[in-house]
């Protein structure tokens, strides 16, 4: 079946080339049949890639090690859950996933716009086909996921244990959905520029795709942060690593884009800006996809010297060059007549919001590529670390939250002075009270920046609540509904607005969590023996006893050996138990010995977190197995030729030995206030985004009516 899979890819590539060509032909000659043919070709592409993905997934699920990808990334003892996700843990498989998502989204948008945007859609089809074709070319030419091995191994290497985490299963598909989602408005923007129809039509048609992309990308980024917090041994959620930054940058410009398209829809302004923004967003999405697999930046996501780095760079250069040339050639068509009336207007604040987001993106870009920049400028390769990033992004983040608070209070075009005073009274009062309360009752003043952020969060939340209350009150004067119904109706009828407000609230809460947990975190690294106690933050921690398990891995990742600890934490009246552990996965390297290989493979830290609304208690352990080494060496020699059962008994004995007489272990315990609000804030953002994306029932009703009206017209004209 691997041959069929490869055939799907090859035919897919040819189909993409055909789609691009025939759509272009149809666009230039007006041949409707050609345009329809191009659209159908994209549908076929999606079908082909679905088939290819199904074939590859079946190989993973069957543990068919004749497939190189399955042999390298999975094993018979990998849990089924992770067999499915192993596909996109590899270079080739992730390219297939990208192409699959690209074809599905393209199919969706072309189906939805099959009767509209007659001039733009064919060009957009060409662009979409070229993008999909590029990824297919990479697979067909260099990184074929269906490569087979002449001598399939009996057992596979297994999925990298660090990836055996539910968040890691959904993280890549989410990110790719985000990247691919932004390709849709990009393609239509290019089409609109080519045919010089630079009004808001292309925006209206692709706005939901941009929102969906933004939502998925943001969720993917948060899942990555969550994974870092719960799976890695350092206790942090964001490290300003190049690959993290690579996913954040398109999200930032994407956020700017979804704000400024509203200005274009309402006032017809910012056309050049929007076109440039979506081009930049898509380029950054490609860059993000590329960085993760290029090896050009020293990152812990080091995927080694890759075979497809150069191709990506060429493609990105073509996209940048072509798009820029197109925008410049259409500058006249993009000029708008409308002008900013007043600085105290929603348009003006959207513009400032855009500028701040771009500034953030520039800062992160600079810091991420600094090794290359400094080498080019000074000849020496230097890098900047998290402290630099934090120092420069924090003030910008504060301004952003402030804008999110003020923006909703302003109307379009121009705010009246009376309206402003009335709008700002309550929120400013609440913020002031918050400020005073925090100063008096907590030690928030120790970190002035955090204090400011807390007050800004209070500001945003008050603004959102006020908008909800005043809007509902306005409805009640007309309908007389009770409060809950008025509020629900208000949100239901103004989904974009109130969904957006909810997103603002979520972001404010998220930043609250970030500020509190970074500024007021307390961390202890200690080395203790069972029975010892130590202090961490406000807790008294006691290392009760060591644990050692064979074949029963609590995280469900399939680790044979797991050494850990039981800790009790006391704070006032509360007592908690934490059970961090360390999982050991066997190595494939036979030279480590039959016993030793179970301890010399990969090891992961299984963190235990006591989640809380006020604070999190996070613990990781690093058991010291150096004491077992003499026994392991002896075991390697004595039992070199023994069968599996004997070896298992030996290992069981070693495991028991650790449990009964453990040497001191190293612990890291972190007391982190308000960390959970980061995840809660992200969930609120997600809810708000879903509300904003959901189509309103009235729109649906009217669309159906217009189709009937059209049919009636058609039938009447025939009679």
């Amino acid at each position, binding site marked *: 079946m691997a041959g069929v899979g490869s055939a799907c890819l090859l035919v897919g590539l040819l189909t993409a080339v055909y789609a691009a060509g025939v759509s272009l032909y149809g666009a230039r000659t007006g041949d409707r049949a050609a345009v329809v043919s191009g659209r159908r070709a994209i549908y076929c592409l999606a079908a082909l890639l679905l088939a290819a993905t199904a074939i590859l997934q079946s190989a993973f699920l069957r543990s068919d090690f004749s497939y190189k990808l399955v042999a390298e990334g999975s094993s018979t003892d990998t849990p089924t859950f992770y067999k499915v996700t192993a596909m996109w843990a590899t270079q080739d498989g992730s390219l297939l996933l990208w192409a699959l998502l690209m074809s599905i989204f393209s199919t969706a948008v072309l189906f939805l716009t099959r009767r509209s945007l007659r001039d733009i859609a064919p060009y957009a089809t060409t662009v979409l086909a070229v993008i999909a074709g590029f990824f297919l070319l990479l697979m067909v030419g260099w990184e074929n996921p269906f490569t087979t091995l002449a001598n399939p191994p009996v057992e596979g290497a297994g999925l990298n244990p660090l990836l055996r985490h539910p968040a890691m299963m959904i993280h890549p598909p989410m990110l790719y959905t985000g990247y691919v989602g932004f390709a849709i408005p990009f393609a239509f923007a290019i089409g609109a520029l080519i045919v010089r129809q630079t009004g808001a039509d292309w925006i209206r048609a692709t706005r939901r795709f941009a929102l969906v992309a933004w939502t998925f990308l943001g969720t993917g980024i948060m899942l990555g942060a969550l994974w870092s917090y719960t799976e890695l041994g350092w206790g942090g959620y964001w490290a300003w690593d190049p690959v993290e930054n690579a996913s954040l940058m398109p999200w930032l410009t994407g956020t700017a884009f979804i704000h400024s398209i509203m200005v274009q829809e309402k006032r017809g302004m910012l056309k050049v800006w929007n076109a440039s923004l979506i081009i930049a967003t898509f380029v950054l999405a490609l860059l993000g996809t590329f960085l993760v697999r290029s090896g050009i930046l020293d990152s812990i996501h080091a995927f080694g010297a890759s075979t497809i780095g150069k191709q990506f760079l060429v493609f990105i250069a073509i996209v940048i060059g072509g798009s820029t040339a197109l925008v410049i050639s259409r500058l006249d068509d993009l000029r708008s007549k409308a002008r900013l009336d007043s600085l105290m207007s929603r348009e003006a604040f959207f513009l400032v919001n855009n500028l701040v987001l771009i500034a953030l993106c520039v800062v992160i870009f600079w810091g991420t590529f600094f090794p290359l920049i400094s080498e080019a400028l000074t000849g020496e390769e230097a890098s900047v670390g998290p402290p630099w990033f934090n120092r420069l992004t924090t003030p910008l983040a504060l301004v952003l939250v402030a804008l999110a608070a003020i923006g909703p209070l302003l109307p379009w075009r121009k705010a009246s002075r009376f309206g402003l005073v009335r709008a700002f009274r309550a929120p400013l009062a609440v913020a002031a009270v918050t400020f005073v309360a925090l100063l008096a009752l907590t030690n928030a003043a120790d970190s002035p920046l955090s204090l400011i952020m807390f007050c800004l969060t209070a500001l945003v939340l008050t603004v959102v609540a006020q908008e909800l209350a005043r809007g509902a009150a306005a409805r009640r004067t007309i309908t007389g509904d009770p409060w809950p119904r008025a509020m629900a109706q208000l949100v239901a009828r103004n989904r974009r607005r109130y969904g957006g407000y909810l997103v603002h609230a979520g972001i404010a809460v998220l930043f609250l969590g970030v500020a509190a947990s970074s500024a007021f975190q307390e961390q202890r690294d200690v080395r203790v023996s069972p029975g010892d106690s130590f202090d961490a933050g406000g807790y008294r921690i006691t290392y009760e006893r060591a644990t050692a398990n064979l074949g029963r891995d609590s995280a469900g990742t399939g680790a044979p050996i797991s050494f850990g600890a039981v800790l009790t934490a006391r704070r006032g009246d509360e007592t908690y138990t934490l059970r961090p552990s360390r999982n050991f996965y066997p190595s494939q390297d036979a030279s480590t010995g039959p016993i030793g290989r179970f301890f010399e493979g*990969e090891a992961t830290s299984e963190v235990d977190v006591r989640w809380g609304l006020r604070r999190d208690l996070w613990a990781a352990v690093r058991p010291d197995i150096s004491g077992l080494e003499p026994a392991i060496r002896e075991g390697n020699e004595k039992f070199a030729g023994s069968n599996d059962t004997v070896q298992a008994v030996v290992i069981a004995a070693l495991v028991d030995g650790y449990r009964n007489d453990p040497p001191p272990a190293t612990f890291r315990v972190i007391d982190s206030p308000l960390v959970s609000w980061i995840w809660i804030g992200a969930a609120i953002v997600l809810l708000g985004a879903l509300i904003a994306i959901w189509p309103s029932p009235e729109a649906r009703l009217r669309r159906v009516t217009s189709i009937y009206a059209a049919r009636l017209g058609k039938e009447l004209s025939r009679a």
Partner: protein
Amino acid sequence: MDPQRKRKLRLFVALGAAVLLAGALIYTSFSASTQASTPSDLLANAEPGRSYELTGKVVADSVDKDGDKLTFRIRDREGKASLPVTYEGVVPDPFREGREVIVSGELKGGTFLAERDSLITKCPSKFTKDEQNT
């Protein structure tokens, strides 16, 4: 103020802010950066007291853990030049002999004294979506 002048003023303010930001970027990044080096770079010309970011591979059979302290030798990716490293702090999960690591610190008396928790290990396989940090 007539609209034209207002617009010009806004443009100037925006441009001014951009210039300020650019200046802050350039100044802070060049002064706060650590220089990436290999063992042979440091062996050849290392300034005492200056912070470096050392990249290289962990030499086989050189790893020794004594309580909290980890010592190992780090060598050039391709080459023999190596340096001893003393490190305290969190050791990332993929840390192993033969793997590529990045560690920050300074060279003192022939040994590289690493900053606490600055050890980063690169992932071994060709393409694994991994993040390992300290």
